[in-house]
């Protein structure tokens, strides 16, 4: 499964990059994230609770950052186990491109993901729409948080 999308953020690239590397900030932007802990420079542990179609599942997994190219982007690779609901794994290439005139940044990402077990059997056709909805939520709250910080 492949998902591609991009968001235009009204912020300079450095600012976005810093936020993307701040796990506390990220956790606040992901309402369904119950745990996000940095284990090392490139490793994080995560616990998220997701509802896909008829299934509500808690995933626990590890996230690795690679191809780190500050402040232009990185690749996030992760795999998570959702117990009886199955498992998911995938990677996302995240790229930041700044528009010097407007000082805004386009964040684009390309995800390739695989799901296994019950999520595949029951939820596969819902994943694309769920993923889109989640990423929309994430970037919405990501931008809002940055804006709120500017105000305060």
């Amino acid at each position, binding site marked *: 499964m492949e998902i591609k999308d991009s968001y235009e953020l009204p912020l300079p690239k450095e600012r976005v990059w810093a936020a993307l590397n701040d796990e506390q900030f990220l956790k606040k932007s992901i309402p369904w994230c119950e745990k996000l802990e940095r284990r090392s420079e490139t490793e994080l542990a995560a616990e998220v609770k997701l509802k896909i*179609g008829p299934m509500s599942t808690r995933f626990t997994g590890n996230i690795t950052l690679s191809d780190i190219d500050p402040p232009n982007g990185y690749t996030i690779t992760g795999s998570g186990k959702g*117990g*009886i609901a*199955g*498992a998911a794994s995938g990677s996302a290439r995240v790229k930041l491109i700044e528009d010097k005139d407007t000082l805004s940044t386009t964040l684009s990402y390309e995800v390739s993901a*695989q*799901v*296994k*077990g*019950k999520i*595949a*059997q*029951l939820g*596969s*056709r819902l994943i694309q729409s769920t993923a889109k909805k989640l990423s929309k939520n994430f970037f919405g709250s990501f931008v809002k948080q940055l804006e709120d910080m500017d105000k305060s």
Partner: protein
Amino acid sequence: MNEVTKIDGIGSSVRRTEDKKFLTGKGRYTDDINRPGQVQAYFLRSDVAHAEIKSIDTKAAQSAPGVVGVFTGADIAVDKVGGPICGWVVPCRDGSSTKEPPHPLLAQGKVRFVGDAVAVVVAETMEQAKSAAELIDVDYNELTPVVDFVNADKGAQIHEEVPNNCYFDWELGDEGATNKAIERAAKVVKLSVRNNRLVPNAMEPRSALAEYDSLDESYTLHTTSQNPHLTRLVLAAFMFAIPESKLRVIAPDVGGGFGSKIYVYIEEAVCVWASKKIGRPVKWTADRTQAFLTDCHGRDHVNDVQLALDENNKIIGLRVDTVCNLGAYLSAFSVVVPTILHGTLLSGQYDIPAIYTNVKGMATNTVNVDAYRGAGRPEATYLLERTMETAAKEVGMDPAEFRRINFIPKDAFPYQTQVALQYDIGDYEPHLDKAMEMIDYSNFEKRRAEAAKRGMYRGIGMSSYIEACGLAPSAVVGALGGRVGQWESASVRVNPTGTISVFTGSHSHGQGHATTFAQIVADKLGIPMENVEVIHGDTDKTPFGMGSYGSRSLASGGSAISKAVDKIINKSKKIAAHLLEASEDDIDFKDGKFVVGGTDKEKAFGEIALAAYVPHNYPLETLEPGLEENAFYDPTNFVFPSGTHIAEVEIDPATGVVEVVDWAACDDFGNLVNPMIVEGQVHGGIAQGIGQALLEDAHYDENGQLLTASYMDYCMPRADDLPSFKVGYTNTPCTHNDLGVKGCGEAGAIASPPALINAVIDALSPLGVTDMSMPATPQKVWKAIQESQSVAAE
């Protein structure tokens, strides 16, 4: 003596006696049965399609609440328990035999499909077993899955024993003669078709309850089986190496099988094994997702067809090259379905002088594929009847007339086909004519024009099918690679008051045997049907029998009952002769009475029964007391039902929805015992065929994940998808069984998909559409309409 007023005999549409319990929810299925101390089994299944198992850690699960045992393939290996076996193999073109890789009860070293059982957790409750299964840590080394069966030979090897992932490469017929016919043909019609993969979806999911008695070291297994005696044989002889007498198998009420409950599955064997290991009764019942993942699927062929015609549009040759998907392991009948049951059907109702077929059976990382209602014969009929319709259109003939000139003529029977079978009897034009009349074929163009005014595309399509069922005789089946006999048994016990208990080796899981078989006995003995009780499904009660599959129960099982009743009548005549002081040769049996010919001296059947059990005035010196007879009947040939189905559809170009607006089914099933039950079988078969043609499609993604594993994504036919069926019959009684009967259980599912797809193509033919694959979903049909219009616009 009571006068018998009404005999519900052969030919009477008696209401099904078994329906009262089913309609009132009182059926007793395996999962309804509970034993004291019973525990629940839950299978941890692989969620990857193809992988090596690096390690399995069951420690946490072992100590989870309620858990009484956690077992893996290693435990099975230690106890040397065998796996399921393949019941039929075929020779390959290169002289080798079918490759039969082992199928361990729990995965050993490798998993081969999503759903492959890796471990079993046995706990006090199902919830505890499921929760504990979550604690099992399996470390997989994932391998590239093989999903596309057509190119499976190029994929990663799934079994050591199966090079190129090819279980067999089989052929039938005369390749040289067929290729010559194609070379010299005035026209060769070519078609490639795919027979979509189906999930059987019996209403009752599979279930097993096993119990071990340590005192006499015996097991009792309740299970959802179409053939409990074969289950016992396979479990006892091939898996556990115990005497059959130490295992009782009971298949109580079974809620539908459609083929999927023929085979011995790993779960029931594991329950048997675990019941001794744990010392408590072990139950397992599949939920619907497990049913989707682990019940053997059906169909999944691609066929390349070449039909050679001479200048008069007579068929002179047929070549079919088939690749089929058999899944991760060979199931009991998976080899025979696409070969013997498929290749031998390729002559259809037609006089074809040269036929050749090659079938390659491929291994993939998907669940096993095996028999599903029709089993090989729907696939053969689909490719043939699609090709017949295509050929008719290509040569500019009416499809009915094209079929008619190629039918095997009525006076050519018995007819030897070029693909091994010899049809004993048939007459094909009458059912074609009658079906055309039933659907008012001659006025179809008017209806098409009327529909066009409403903006709808209307089409008509037909299928003239042959069915070969009631596989027999055993010797031929053996010569063809079958490892079982194909006879059926019956034991008819006359009780002292003249009531009858019939013990049959057949099994009913929806077919209505309690009614039909009782009608046969009532008819032959001239007694009321309510005096006849039919017992099936328990190896401790019934004689060894083959169970029910392949539309064999009436032709084989019913005939065995008929033969046993004949023996009862013969013995009764001897008793009557003694009581009436007449010669046995002078005794006539009619309407339930034994009469001395030309006199009014008679004895009722009940009086004979009583005399047999209270033999105070009885020829004990020449005749044993009692009145009970067995028969084992091995038919001399298959039976060959045939018929013509015609479908009429309307397609809404705005949505692509195909509505089945009319259906005529005219079948020749020989003599009908219960026309109402037969009609029910026809309805059910057509409904499943409509499901295949329009709705159902099992789909694995490229990673081997089954995406259609629930009713959200796998679309079953419902009442509003079906028209009111017009059902009619012709009759050429079977020549080689006493009842003159053929089988009717699968015919509807065999006949209907090509008729319906032919109708869909016909509806879209004004747009230039010449092909449509199954299932013809609204999206596919809509796209075909759009594409034809964009072509037209260019």
